[in-house]
Each structure stands twice: as structure tokens, then as C-alpha cells.
């Protein structure tokens, strides 16, 4: 708070002072007070006014400057009043009281919402685990009664399971404490496991995998990365084109402490105006509309999980040529050590 601003804010007081000053001076002139005496009286009057103004300014400045500073510097502004000292003027004390009351209400609401959200998430996770038993039973029933009907039911069951997984990881990705555990894993194992997970879908759509140079070890969470790879592969299969033999190429390269795993398809590609938005929650884009059944959640969840894992996810594409999704994973510590020694 600058003095000029403060004075400008007090313009009514200043106007009153000026009017009273002029009227007082006029009155002193009328009753023929000696000029020197009039000056002294007016001088004292002016000095009194300015001293009150300055004192008031000084008191307020300390309080409000601290409040402003706290507002700028503190992230959790719901605890603002904790940074304030009880001010020595009435307005400040009133403001403090209101602020505290407001904060208490807000924080209670926040805590209640967080609690509610946590309970909801716990329920979602329990549910996702519960539903696995009926899915497992259904799969076994199908295995025991193999025919065309159960075979197509099995495909639906795959989708069902995929959606359950997606929901589970959406819930995991948005919780404050992720339950991930970083481990050293051979990149090739990750890719193989993910492909096997999508094998049925890939074979049905006649998409073949190819591998280039995957002999690296990376530091990551195997379950999370498995889910991420599954989504990326599923996208690669879904948006294939019948114009050429569909392929998914898995390749890796190393730069410094990062290993970039690229999954390249030769599918329909993503239009340039959509590419920046593919990671947004619920974004389906032109391809999603054309191909249908797109929830717009897959890549969004992948992106959230990747952020938590500290893995960069890059999507690049050319319409009619294909899409490349790259994951920048951390090199396993052993590899770093062996390179130094």
C-alpha cells in the first residue's frame, strides 16, 4: 500500500479538511485575528490532520502489506489468517475475525469433501476388485463350454475387463498418494507382456508387432507402465487402416539417462488440429467420432500416470501415415553405473 494510494482513497477526508481549513481561515480573517496568530492556528490544525493521516496509514500499511504478501506467497490461502498478527485498529480486527470464520468454514468443507472423495475412491477400488471374481468365473465357464457364442462372449469380456482396468487406474492416477513402486525391469519384458495382453485384439485386427533394439533396462512401475502400454497398443490397433498391412513397431533408443520407447503404428494418424488435445480428458476428436466407441479417457489417464511416474509422453502423427507415441523412461541405475565404470 503506497501513501499516494492511501491518500487518494481518503479523498473525502482530504476534501473536508480543505473546506474546514479554508472556512476556518476565512473566519479568522473576518474577526480580524492578526495574520501571524491565524497562521499558527491553521498550521496546528493542518499538522494535526496530517499526523492523524500518517499514523493511520502506518498502522494499516503494516497489516495489509503482510496480508497481501501472504496472499501472493502462500499456496494454501485457506490458512491466510495464520500469517497475521492481531492488528491494533478496529477494522483490521473485524477483518481478521471474518477471515478466520470464513477460513474455518472453507477448511471444514474441504476436509469433508476430501473425506467423501477418499471414501468414494476406496469404494471404486474395492468394487473393481470385487468384479474380478465374476469375470474370472465367466471366463472359466466359457473355457468349459467352448463354442462360437462363448468365443464372442470372451471378446466382450476382454472389453469389460479393459474398462474396469481403466476405471481403476483413473482412480489411482488422481489420488494424492500413488501406490507405485519403481523397479528395474527389462524393457523387452514390458513390451512382450503388453503385447500378449492385447494379442487377441491384435490378431483379430491383423496387426503384427515388430521389434527394434529393446535390450535396455528401465526404472519404472511395472503395473502402471503395463496399463499405459496396453492403452497405447489398443489405440494403435483401433486406428489402423486397411490400405496397408497394419504394423506396430516397438523401438527404443538411449540418450543420457533416458530411454525413449517409441510405439509407431502405420494407421490413419491424428489431424494436426487435434494432436495437442488428444491427452485432454474426454477428448475424442475427429478419429473418435469416425471410429466411434471412444471415451477419450485412455490417453488422458496414461498422461496422468506418466506425470506421476516422471515419464514424459509424446505424441506425434501424420495424417494418413501413422502415429508415434514415445515414452521417455529412466535408465536403470545399474546401467548408469556400468557406463561410468
Amino acid at each position, binding site marked *: 500500500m503506497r501513501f499516494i494510494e492511501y491518500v487518494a482513497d481518503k479523498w473525502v477526508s482530504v476534501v473536508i479538511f480543505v473546506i474546514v481549513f479554508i472556512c476556518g481561515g476565512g473566519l479568522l480573517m473576518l474577526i480580524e485575528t492578526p495574520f501571524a496568530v491565524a497562521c499558527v492556528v491553521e498550521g496546528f490544525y493542518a499538522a494535526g490532520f496530517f499526523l492523524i493521516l500518517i499514523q493511520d496509514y502506518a498502522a494499516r500499511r503494516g497489516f495489509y502489506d503482510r496480508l497481501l504478501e501472504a496472499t501472493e506467497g502462500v499456496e494454501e490461502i485457506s490458512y491466510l489468517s495464520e500469517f497475521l498478527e492481531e492488528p491494533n485498529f478496529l477494522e483490521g480486527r473485524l477483518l481478521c475475525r471474518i477471515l478466520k470464520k470464513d477460513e474455518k468454514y472453507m477448511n471444514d468443507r474441504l476436509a469433508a469433501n476430501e473425506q467423501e472423495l477418499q471414501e468414494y475412491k476406496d469404494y471404486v477400488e474395492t468394487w473393481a*476388485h*470385487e468384479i*474380478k*471374481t465374476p*469375470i*474370472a*468365473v465367466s*471366463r*472359466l*465357464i466359457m*473355457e*468349459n463350454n*467352448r463354442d*462360437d457364442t462363448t*468365443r464372442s462372449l470372451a471378446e466382450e469380456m476382454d472389453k469389460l*475387463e479393459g474398462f474396469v482396468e481403466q476405471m481403476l487406474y483413473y482412480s489411482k492416477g488422481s489420488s494424492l498418494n500413488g*501406490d507405485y*513402486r519403481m523397479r528395474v525391469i527389462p524393457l523387452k519384458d514390458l513390451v*512382450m507382456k503388453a*503385447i*500378449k495382453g492385447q*494379442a*487377441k485384439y*491384435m*490378431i*483379430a485386427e*491383423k496387426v*503384427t*508387432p515388430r521389434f527394434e533394439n529393446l535390450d535396455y533396462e528401465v526404472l519404472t512401475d511395472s*503395473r502402471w507402465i503395463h496399463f499405459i502400454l496396453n492403452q497405447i497398443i489398443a489405440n494403435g490397433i483401433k486406428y489402423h487402416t486397411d490400405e496397408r498391412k497394419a504394423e506396430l513397431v516397438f523401438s527404443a533408443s538411449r540418450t543420457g539417462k533416458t530411454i525413449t520407447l517409441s510405439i509407431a503404428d502405420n494407421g490413419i494418424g491424428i489431424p494436426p488440429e487435434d494432436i495437442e488435445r488428444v491427452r485432454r480428458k474426454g477428448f475424442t476428436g475427429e478419429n473418435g467420432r469416425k471410429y466411434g466407441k471412444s471415451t477419450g479417457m485412455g490417453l488422458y489417464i496414461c498422461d496422468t500416470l506418466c506425470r506421476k511416474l516422471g515419464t514424459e509422453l509424446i505424441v506425434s502423427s501424420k495424417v494418413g501415415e501413422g502415429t508415434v507415441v514415445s515414452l521417455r523412461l529412466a535408465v536403470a541405475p545399474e546401467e548408469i553405473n556400468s557406463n561410468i565404470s
Partner: protein
Amino acid sequence: MERIFIVEDEPRLREELGSVLEKNGYECILAEQFEQITEDIVKAAPDLVLLDLGLPVYDGFYICRKLRQVSEVPVIVVTSSDSDMDELMSLNLGADDFITKPYNIHILLAHIAAVLVRSHGRKGSLMMTHKGLTLDIGKSRAVHKEQSVDLTKNELGILRCLMEHKGTIVSRDELIQELWEMEEFVEDSTLTVNINRLRKKLADVGISDYLTTKRGQGYMV
């Protein structure tokens, strides 16, 4: 015949799992009550225990620990929660393997076979016989009457898959998937080549028409 003790509280799952395993050549013992489950397992003396973690009365961890005090029987823990903690606990308590629900039945069978081979130290004795043809999986060889023929990895995979599902049609896609499980990422055309070679090899040992084509559906033995 190897005997598998299934500890699973969901009756439908237990029964269906039992019949899948029986179809694949195992004998199954199903637990119906869980009060003295450890004693029951010891009494039944199975070759392997499939143990669910979430059970009434005692949980899987407790049973696993109890069992390890009196028996060395191989244990595969089956659970629906895929947390690292469960896996770690199970393996620390002496379980031999860990698999999460909902499992792919072929993966479960592969785990069972692997644990059995490890615990019995037997390899090469994995045999399957159907309609006079014996498949020696360990040696990758098909035997018919006194004659035998070596099979390639793909041919072995195809024949094993067909024999596992003897009497039912196996679609081309399922065969391809079986080969992908073995990390042989073949295409449709390669499968045709493999099937034809396999047919020729079987004819060489005097058993032609063993593998029948069901037009538009797949193959069957």
C-alpha cells in the same frame, strides 16, 4: 496324474476352475469348508495347492504360513488385488508363485505346469496322448507307433494347443494367440505354412488325416 487342491470360497469359481483343470489332465480336490483347511490339505497330500487370499475363517496368508510349518507342497497364491504388498507377503510366507484374478486360463495352466516341473525336478516327462499319437513336449517330438518325428517350436505349440482342446474346434486366431504367448509373433500366412508342414510330418510317421480342417472355423484333433 497330478493332484491339485483348490482353496477358493466362491463355489462357482471353484467348480469351473476344477473342471477346466480336469480337462487339462489334472485331478482336483475342492475345499468345501475352511475351518480345518490346513489339516485337510495335509491329509489330501496334493501335488500343488491353488490358494485364494480372501477366504472366510482364515485368510490365505495364515493358511500359507500354517501349511509351510508342516508341508513343502507347492503353493500358488491367487488374488484379486494386484498390490505389491500381497505379492511380497505371499512369497515371504513361502508361496511358490503368485497370480492375479482375472487370470487368463492358459497363463494359469502355464504357471501350474512351471511350478510342478520346478518342484518335482522333472522335465521331459510332459507327455500328451490322443488317438494313438503321443506328444513329448519336453523333447519336442511326436511319436506314433515305433516312429517319431522332431517338431519345430511352432509346430509343437500348434499340436499341443490342439491336443489340449481335443475334440473341440480351435480357431486360427486362437492358434496364432497360442504362438504369440510363446513370443513367436506369426501372421496368418505363416500359420498356414506351419500347419501344412505339421501335417506332412505326421503323415511321415504314418498318421495322416490326424489334423482335420473345419472350413471357416479352424482345426481339430
